[in-house]
């Protein structure tokens, strides 16, 4: 059916260059579940703290024997700052915030501060037992607290302000603290109302100097990160929870909801609010408050809906609209004004003033903006509550729109947290790739070999000092029992060929040879110039800088090394040759596609109802990276495509070892059951499948070429109106292990050229797998 010929003329539909979106729009009832996240979104966040410029926020910042009120003291950007003030308790005086960062991550804690009545700043993380004292008047570092920081620095910002930073390795819990000190040694004393001024704080993955953070424009402002992310990317389609409250866009984020993009992007229905703005009346809105007291006043000012408090906390406006259980809706709250000293609060829930869908309160000084919320209804009425958090009479918030729309399509979700796939962009299987002194890099010796020596601080190919010197002296022995090796064990996921690579340079002035990977691997040469050397082996299980007597290389190896990497040899070709990996959750994402990974245990997303009963034809295009030889469902209509009539399934791999399987059937289930040729995992594949019940078509393409076809009788009838399971069969079986970039489903047999366009789009998203 596909029979693709020359691709040169492809990509044009009806004389217009086709895109994935135009093809989807051409075929009503199409679906796109895209589990990939573009790189620009991944790079959005650097500062891991919330309310970085609002230390008065008590939800984000826990106050310990201290307060942090707004101060009129002029901050570096000309606005106000916060006066961190001790109380009379004889204990630490500090504020702190818990941050979600993996244990073992090197982070940099940065604080913009100025001396007040106290001269000293105390920065610390008690779980890591690491910190630093600073002199705010002298703008200098003092003694370390606990484990000495791996780096620290100060950079002047003028006007008595400076940015103070220290770097440390995280423990299981990460809780950076900002403390006041009156002696430059500790924060534990009887307070007398002493102050230091703080403007902002940030926590960054990696090591940064104070000057580097200044060069980036200062500490990145983060208020409520997820709200800000959704404001910046209003069409984002992946959420951590099944209700669509918290977006998923970073490594380790689980995916609980993938919004359908039926025409290539998220599609919204008609406006459901009868008075969405611009406003001429307050019709549809009522005044309310969460606490006893005077109700606020609702009024219209210059086409804006104004909510004015009358001296009571939480003076709000309320509205509601009907919902259908299971359908997904989007609410956008357009905020024009937050009066000085006021704060914005908004909630969305299934009960009056409820907040089971959304519960948010923004800090004072928050920038008016559009705030977008997506949620899946669990009730038949939705209640939206919004207005003022603050008490002062006359405080007001103004809104330019309150729009409510259904998010159209058939969305894939998973309510059980353990069953959600997780976003990952990991390619390099090593950890501590820039720190050979890390325990992950073992040293092994045997026979006449000496313990390898690993020395940091040598000049790297970029002129920095991040290269390591490695000395592996195997001694006089020349057998396999005489060795000196630097090794990192690698957990591999399949028997495929893997590529190891590393920058090397001789440190002796003479060319040297050694083996990369296991003993009897492939010899590589370190010359007097920096060179990236490669070797390939099947399932090596470890990365070795190997010096065995039996290999015959340089006996007393003395080389400089930099940026090691090991990955499947058939990895996408457009990826950078090196990926920095500090830990399994802290690694480079720029240039590496971020997509959802199914664990092969219990992960599964489900489209509750996909009505394909109107058609007996279907095209499915999926981008997958399989990590296992164990049978797995990528997508399957009905509870079992092997036995249920009107079903189809794409299994990677199928039941026949390492093949890819497609089956389609009407009244004769799975009659069109076909397998591609075997490919051992890990392997990245763009798979296209078509089924046509009436015409007995079952076809499977793999990486742009036809892989299998069948004309077996599929019987009669259409496909079912049923659940679509992604990553697992219903009943918790046949779990897929690996990544799914996207699944495109079209209820028709599309043309060969259209197929090629979609395949090319998926291939590009994956970084060119063929």
């Amino acid at each position, binding site marked *: 059916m596909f029979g693709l010929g020359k691709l040169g003329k492809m990509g044009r539909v009806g004389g217009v260059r086709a895109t994935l979106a135009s093809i989807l729009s051409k075929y009503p009832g199409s679906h796109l579940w895209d589990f990939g996240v573009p790189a620009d979104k991944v790079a959005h966040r650097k500062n891991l703290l919330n309310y970085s410029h609002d230390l008065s926020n008590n939800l984000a910042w826990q106050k310990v024997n201290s307060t942090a009120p707004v101060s009129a003291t002029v901050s570096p950007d000309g606005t106000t700052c916060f006066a961190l003030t001790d109380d009379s308790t004889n204990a630490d005086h500090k504020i702190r915030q818990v941050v*979600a960062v*993996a244990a073992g991550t090197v982070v940099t804690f940065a604080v913009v501060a100025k001396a007040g009545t106290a001269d000293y700043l105390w920065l610390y993380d008690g779980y890591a037992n690491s910190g630093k004292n600073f002199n705010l008047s002298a703008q200098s570092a003092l003694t370390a607290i606990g484990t000495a920081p791996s780096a620290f620095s100060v950079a002047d910002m003028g006007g008595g302000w400076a940015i103070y930073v220290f770097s440390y390795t995280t423990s299981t819990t990460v809780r950076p603290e900002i403390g006041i000190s009156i002696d430059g040694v500790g924060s534990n004393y009887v307070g007398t109302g002493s102050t230091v001024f703080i403007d902002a704080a940030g926590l960054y993955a990696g090591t940064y100097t104070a000057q580097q953070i200044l060069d980036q424009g200062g500490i990145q402002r983060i208020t409520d990160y997820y709200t800000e992310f959704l404001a910046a990317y209003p069409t984002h389609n992946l959420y951590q*929870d*099944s209700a669509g409250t918290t977006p998923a866009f970073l490594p*380790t984020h*689980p995916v609980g909801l993938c919004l359908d993009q039926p025409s290539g992007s998220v599609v919204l229905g008609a406006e459901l609010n009868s008075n969405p703005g611009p406003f001429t009346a307050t019709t549809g809105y009522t005044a309310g408050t969460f606490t006893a007291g005077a109700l606020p006043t609702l009024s219209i000012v210059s086409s804006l809906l104004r909510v004015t408090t009358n001296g009571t906390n939480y003076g709000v406006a309320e509205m509601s609209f009907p919902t259908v259980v299971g359908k997904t809706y989007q609410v956008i709250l357009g905020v024009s004004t937050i009066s000085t000293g006021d704060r914005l609060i908004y909630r969305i829930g299934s009960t009056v003033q409820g907040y089971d869908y959304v519960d948010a309160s923004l800090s004072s000084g928050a920038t008016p903006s559009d705030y977008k919320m997506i949620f899946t209804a669990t009730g038949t009425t939705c209640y939206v509550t919004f207005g003022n958090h603050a008490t002062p009479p006359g405080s007001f918030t103004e809104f330019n729109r309150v729009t409510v729309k259904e998010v159209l399509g058939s969305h894939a979700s998973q*309510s*059980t*947290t*353990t*069953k*959600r796939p*997780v976003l990952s962009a990991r390619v390099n299987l090593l950890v501590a790739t820039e720190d050979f002194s890390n325990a992950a890099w073992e040293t092994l010796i045997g026979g006449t070999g000496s313990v390898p020596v690993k020395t940091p601080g040598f000049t790297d190919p970029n002129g920095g000092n991040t290269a390591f010197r490695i000395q592996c002296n195997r001694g006089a022995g020349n057998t396999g029992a005489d060795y000196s090796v630097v090794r990192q064990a690698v*957990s591999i996921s399949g028997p495929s060929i893997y590529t190891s690579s590393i920058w090397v340079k001789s440190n002796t002035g003479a060319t040297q040879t050694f083996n990369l990977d296991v003993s009897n691997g492939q010899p590589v040469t370190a010359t007097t110039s920096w060179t990236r050397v490669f070797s390939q082996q099947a399932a090596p299980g470890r990365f070795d800088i190997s010096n065995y007597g039996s290999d015959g290389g340089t006996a007393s190896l003395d080389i400089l090394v930099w940026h090691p990497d090991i990955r499947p040899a058939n990895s996408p070709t457009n990826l950078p040759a090196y990926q920095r990996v500090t*830990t*399994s*959750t802290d690694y480079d994402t720029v240039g590496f596609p971020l997509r959802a990974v199914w*664990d*092969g*245990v*219990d*992960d599964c997303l489900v489209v509750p109802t996909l009505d394909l009963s109107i058609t007996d034809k279907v095209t499915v295009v999926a981008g997958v990276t399989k990590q296992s030889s164990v*049978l797995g469902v990528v997508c399957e209509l009905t509870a*079992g495509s*092997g036995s249920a009539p009107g079903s189809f399934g794409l*299994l990677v791999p*199928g*039941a026949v070892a390492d093949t890819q399987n497609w089956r389609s059937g009407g009244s004769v289930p799975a009659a069109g059951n076909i397998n591609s040729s075997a490919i051992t995992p890990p392997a990245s594949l763009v798979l296209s499948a078509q089924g046509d019940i009436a015409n007995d078509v079952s076809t499977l393409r793999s990486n742009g070429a036809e892989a299998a076809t069948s004309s077996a009788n599929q019987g009669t009838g259409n496909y079912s109106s049923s659940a679509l399971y992604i990553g697992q*069969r219903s009943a*918790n*079986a*046949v779990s897929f292990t690996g990544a799914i970039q996207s699944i495109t489903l079209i209820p028709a047999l599309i043309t060969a050229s259209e197929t090629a366009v979609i395949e090319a789009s998926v291939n590009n998203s994956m970084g060119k797998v063929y």
Partner: protein
Amino acid sequence: MYTYLNLLVTAPATPLAQQLIEAVAGEAGKGTLSVPLVPIGSPPGTPATWYGASGAIGSELVQLLRDAQALAEAAGIDLSQAELLLSQADITEIDAEPWAAVLERLGLERQQEAV
């Protein structure tokens, strides 16, 4: 905030574990421990001896899985019951011990499935 765990519970203790997880995590916990496991080499049809789950678990539940006293208080059961339940569970961080390694250590495999 999530922690990524492998969670395995013996078959007799699984119903109670599932009730507790759902009580703490609500809808997000419903359906946890759904993977039936049997001793390696078991013939098809062998009843599951353990049930497992692997993935993101909310911090409030993680705390209970690591602290029998907290589990007892949250679930309204005796400390001895909580300790007994946790003794019937095998809990590891995914980063520290992948799922396959856990199964190998416990001598388990997934119950055979029809294709």
